[in-house]
């Protein structure tokens, strides 16, 4: 048939993938391998040589600053993951399941996406006049006579970093969850209702399990971005909260390439473990 005659002509299209493979190999795979390699280099004050040594690795694990950054990163990641999920899920539930009209749910999703048209750094910076001692939140709370003294822990603390990151990343939770919820066959829910199941039971037995792939995709998005963060923590904590990303930036700034590389390798390992765990929970290829 026509397929047989056409096939030879289509054969030629395999080379089209080559430029993409080459680009990704050169500018993503090789750089990451470089990080692993350089982490074993010998670092002197202003220089670096390729003599292999474990010095930087030992230094990382013997210093409280560096191991502290590792735990801070893990802690902030877990907290932000929890807050984005808690903040995002109800919104996704409304947009994906409760809103009957397709137009309204699209409009709501677009409203969620619009803030992304502002530069990321400006979005981070926008929290400063919001949270500061003379910031909008304190002014409003004082005007409402809820508090008499401005709350000072709002800005330049770990809390401000968590608030900022939750706002910036929660939309990445809403999107995938709302998408999965929207695909649920309404007849299943109707059937469960007809059989006398209450909303709580329907939610835990049907809605939540079916939305789980969306939760995992959202969690992967949020994790990847939070783990690689350094701008939000730098700008909103007044450099008090140091994540692995912040360590890399400062080390590169002072030309300590070996230390930056060690931190980079550790970040890569953490990231790999996190993604592996998430992909264990849900087999994405099967679900999508």
């Amino acid at each position, binding site marked *: 048939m*026509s397929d047989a005659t056409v096939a030879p002509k289509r054969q030629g299209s*395999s*080379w089209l993938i080559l430029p993409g493979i080459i680009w990704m190999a050169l*500018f993503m795979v*090789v750089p990451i391998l*470089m*990080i692993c390699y350089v982490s074993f280099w010998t670092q002197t004050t202003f220089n670096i040589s390729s003599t292999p040594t474990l010095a930087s690795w030992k230094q990382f694990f013997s210093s409280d600053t560096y191991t502290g950054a590792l735990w801070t990163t893990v802690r902030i990641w877990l907290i932000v993951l929890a807050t984005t999920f808690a903040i995002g899920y109800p919104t996704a539930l409304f947009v994906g399941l409760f809103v009957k009209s397709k137009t309204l749910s699209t409009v709501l999703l677009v409203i969620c996406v619009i803030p992304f048209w502002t530069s990321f750094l400006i979005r981070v910076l926008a929290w400063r006049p919001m949270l500061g001692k003379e910031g909008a939140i304190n002014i409003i709370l004082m005007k409402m006579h809820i508090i008499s003294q401005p709350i000072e822990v709002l800005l330049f603390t770990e809390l401000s970093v968590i608030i900022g990151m939750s706002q910036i990343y929660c939309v990445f939770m809403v999107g995938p969850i709302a998408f999965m919820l929207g695909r649920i066959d309404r007849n299943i829910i109707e059937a469960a209702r007809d059989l006398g199941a209450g909303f709580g039971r329907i939610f835990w037995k049907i809605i939540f399990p079916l939305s789980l792939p969306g939760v995992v995709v959202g969690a992967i998005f949020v994790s990847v971005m939070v783990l690689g963060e350094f701008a939000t923590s730098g*700008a909103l904590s007044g450099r008090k909260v140091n994540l692995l990303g912040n360590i890399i930036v400062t080390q590169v700034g002072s030309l300590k390439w070996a230390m930056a590389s060690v931190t980079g390798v550790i970040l890569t390992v953490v990231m790999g473990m996190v993604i592996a765990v998430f992909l264990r929970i849900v087999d994405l290829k099967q679900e999508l």
Partner: protein
Amino acid sequence: MESRVLKPILAVYVAAFILFLYGPFFVLGILSFQQGPDGGPQFPIIEWSLYWYKQIFGLTPPSRIAPLPVGEALIRSLVLAFMTMVTSTVLGVMSAQAFRRKFRGSTVVFYLIVLGMMVPGVLTGLGTSLLANNVIGITRHWYTTAFATHVAYTYPFAFLVMLAILNRFDGSVEEAAWSLGVNPWTTFRKVTFPLIFPGVLSAMLFAFTLSLDEFPRSLFAAGGTEDQTLPLAIYGTFSVEIHPNIFAFGVLTTLFSFALLSVYGVLMGLSVRRARKLAMQEDIA
């Protein structure tokens, strides 16, 4: 039924959620009209003025607050975003085209490409600068190393968009062209490309905006101050005291983004309308 109780509660919640998303922008927008040059980046508003907007365009007399170094940075960012957009869209269309046939190792290649959007910019940026700085020994520039990392980041997005479009693509039109003896390149140009053009537009939009706002990759992979892109210029103000000029600039860039989005919307509308027109002509014929 519970949903009658739950739905209004959730609706109120979503309203609060949207307030949470937009709150900082309102505050930022309001404070951008702070009096200058003495007004600080906080409440209360001493007097409403356009001072900080004028300052960005260099229309105010010099004061102790230096204007944002955005002029050249903006041009660099736009050129870089344009280069990135063209390269990653071309790569994306080529790869997605290749993926229409199953080939050996396609799963591995798929993950290799998608990894580009998953690996944090800190890591690719660091790796690329190590490679350039310590191994090859070349100077880093926004149009070389930073460009390479930007493409490695935006190309996966372009690829996925094109993959989604080509998955729904009806190959029989191409086969018709081939069986009439049209060569593959002309077929692509005259048949395939016009049909996938809306997808190409989306891929371009993705690549352009992602590159324009890309910050960690540029931070490591671009060189010194003469290589500053727009996000780097903004980041530079983080370390020193901030002034309302950065807020005014935020408002302006947001407006610029909307302008860009409108252009995309108009182009998209035109191409959809053209497609519909063609379909109608076919029906008549």
